């Protein structure tokens, strides 16, 4: 498993342009970070990276992405708690929970916690793009 290096510092890079639809990817697993970043950027979206819950809240409030792709099992505060805090400030910001917790009951649990959509890991790349595209197409 363990790919070496890549400490805590997740990509804090801003999106390429202000016109871009920016997605904040919050995931402690750097493989997942890279995959999402690669796929979404290829699809023409801006990507921000957070490696844990607190970072996710911080970046979401400061950089105001258009949506968030949020993992659940993260160190510190988990994705659900991060989502709760972000929704307190920005209730309209769409948050999609992307979790490897994919027992039958988990989906309901996440939606009940306030998620706008749920993406189970592992996912097909098309599903990821479809979810983001759909949210990007919705009028703000």
């Amino acid at each position, binding site marked *: 498993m*363990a*790919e070496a290096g890549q400490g805590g510092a997740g990509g804090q890079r801003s999106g390429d342009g202000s016109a871009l639809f920016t997605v904040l990817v919050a995931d402690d697993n750097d493989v997942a970070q*890279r*995959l999402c970043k690669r796929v979404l950027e290829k699809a023409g979206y801006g990507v921000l990276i957070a490696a844990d819950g607190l970072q996710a809240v911080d970046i979401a409030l400061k950089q105001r992405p258009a949506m968030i792709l949020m993992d659940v099992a993260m*160190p510190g505060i988990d994705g659900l708690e991060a989502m709760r805090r972000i929704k307190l400030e920005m209730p309209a910001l769409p948050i999609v929970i992307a979790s*490897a917790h*994919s027992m039958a009951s988990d989906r309901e649990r996440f939606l009940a916690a306030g998620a706008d959509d749920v993406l189970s*890991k592992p996912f097909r790349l098309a599903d990821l793009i479809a979810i983001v595209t759909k949210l990007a197409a919705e009028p703000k």
Partner: protein
Amino acid sequence: MLPEPDAPVAPWSRGLVRRVIPFAAIAAIFAVQALADASPVLAFPLYLAVVLLAALQVGRTESVAAATLAAIAILIRPLVTGAQASDLAPALLLAVVLVVVTVAVGEAARQARETAVEAQRRAARTAAAEQRVRTMLEAAMVGLALTDLDGRWTQVNEQLSRILGRNRDDILQTPLGALTAEGDRQVIDEALALLRSGDIVHWEGELTHVRPDGTLVPVAVAIAKPSPEANLLVVQETDISERRRVELIRDCLVAVRQAILDPTSWDQTVPVVLGSLGTYLDWDVALYWMVDSEGKSLRARHVWRSRGASLDEFLEQSRALNLTGGTGLVSRVWRSGVVGSEANLEQVNDYERLDAARRADLQAALALPVVDGGAVIGVIELLGRRPRSLRDDEVTALATVGLELGQFIRRSETAQALRRSEADHRAIYERSPIGIARISAEGELLEANGALLGMVEHDFETMRASAWPDLLRAYDQAASRHRAAPLLAGITGGDSVQVRAVTASGKWLWLQLTATSIPDASGRPEHVLVMVEDVTTVRDTSDKLAEALESQRSANANLEKLDRTKTEFLSIVSHEFRTALTGIQGFSELIRDGGLEPDELRAYGGYIFNDADRVNRLIGDMLDLDRMESGRMSMRSGAVDINEVLSEAMARAGTAASTVEFKADLDPRLPIVSGDRDRLIQVVSNLVNNAIKYSPDGGTVTLSSRAEGGFALVSISDTGLGIPPDEIGHVFERFRRVRSGAAQSIPGTGLGLTIVKQIVEMHGGKIWVESAVGHGSAFHFTVPMAVESTSPMQLLHG
């Protein structure tokens, strides 16, 4: 001798005549003497006779005057004739004698007369007194009489004749004893005998006299002998019929109350009550008429009859009668609730059994209601052979009897119900298959039923003396274990306690004791009832059942826990796998879709490989752990040199990690241990790899070994990140990885330390950790030394 004038003459003229007569007689004698010229001596006896008569008859003055006249008559001739002194002297002597005699006799006569007058006056007084006494006797309210010493009447007053119902002549001819009723005759005869002999002078008693019409009259009698020598007796008699009547009513009430005192059965008591009424109040028939349960009719239920009377027909009719109304005596009393009577049945025409009553010579009837709570529940009818009217006190007494009988009936019904209930309970008590003991408030066994004695195989005495106290102690001990009250303190009932008890034959039983205290009127426990059940079989069965249930329960709990653990485990494992598969699937999809730069391809291939490798290790660790936890992992046990294991693990790790510096602090005299060398290398390698992983900025990893007790103690310490205090307790749990702060991206399956702990424990050792955040962690574990080895390592290490 003196001529008395025949014709009635006025008293004063008669007195005058009487006074004159002596003087005339003297003058006559003097005339005769003078004419005959006789010697005065010769005439002297005549003068003397006249003067004496005068002295006896008339007053003193007249008699002295007459005597003087006579003396002069004697003296006058000698004086006139002038006779010689010798002739004068005798005449003078005679004259003096005459006067003296006259005076003397006159005095004597006067005294005699006075005496006679006094005697006459006394006689008159006596007669008056006698008259007064007689009047008093006749007017007296008590009978008074005089009899001789044999009781023959000499004088009887009016009242006594009224008492005896006879006229006086009749009484005077019949002695006291003969007037007395047969039964008392001996009593009065004895009394008279004692009075006659003088042994007593006074006797008092009560007798019954017989009147000519045969009726009896009770009297109180007092007989007095005025003096021991007297030959008469004073008899005083008082009619006590009224007192007797009142006494009989009172005695009747007493007898009735006596009969109803004990509320036994009404059927046994009624005849006694009827008999008391009949006997004391002198009736010949007594009937109890009972109102039926609906209050619609009356029937004769009990009968009493005096002896010897021929009442069969009347009673038969009475029994056959079913009174539903009408105006007859019994019906009237039933309706009114008031005592009623027929003084003379001859004059009644609405009496239902009139002809029979007449043929039985029953003349009077009386009926009294038996009342309970204001309702007439029965009527007592009394019939007698003599006409009589009802007196107020009798009515009151009979009404009282009716009321008391009513109350008695209610009591007796209650008592009967009680007795029935008591008999039922007694039967339940005696035949109950449950043992029942009644004990005093002090714990003394008062009673034990057959079931209880049979259960413990004791007779009552041994039960009371020894077996019961043992049981009581056992109860209290068991009760105190269950925080319940001792048997004698504050039991209200319902609590059961099971105790162990041994029977006389030595059989051990489980007895269930259920105690209920029975309070007295004041609420204090008077005695305690203890139900005793032999629950040995139940208890044995339930013990087994409880055991089975308990093991089932714990098995269930284990299964549940296992199930929960399994679900949890699955959830964690699937999460781990899916996380790893996310990269594998995503990047392989990118590669498949093509259009990648060569360096991209290489990087993505690397990610895919790493995650695939991680999945593989995860599977390996899981299988290892499963084998260890299920005890299916075999250990190839042998002599292991811990120092050599440490050195090898250090050498393997050193080639991979160049960021940390290794230090070894090995005890060269450490004895060899008994264990699986490969597994021990796995333990040390894992701990060393962790130490390297969690020292991202380099540092020192130190391996040490030493002997401690019968164990080899191994420590692997680093100078890395350290474990936060809230996580240190969980590091050996599955999938619990320290991921806070700088440690968050350090990869791992989360199973390594769990496996390490399992291996150490399989060797009989222990593992623990000390750590401080920012200063590093130290993992220590022990492995027991080989039993027979104290020095072989000397051999190995030279």
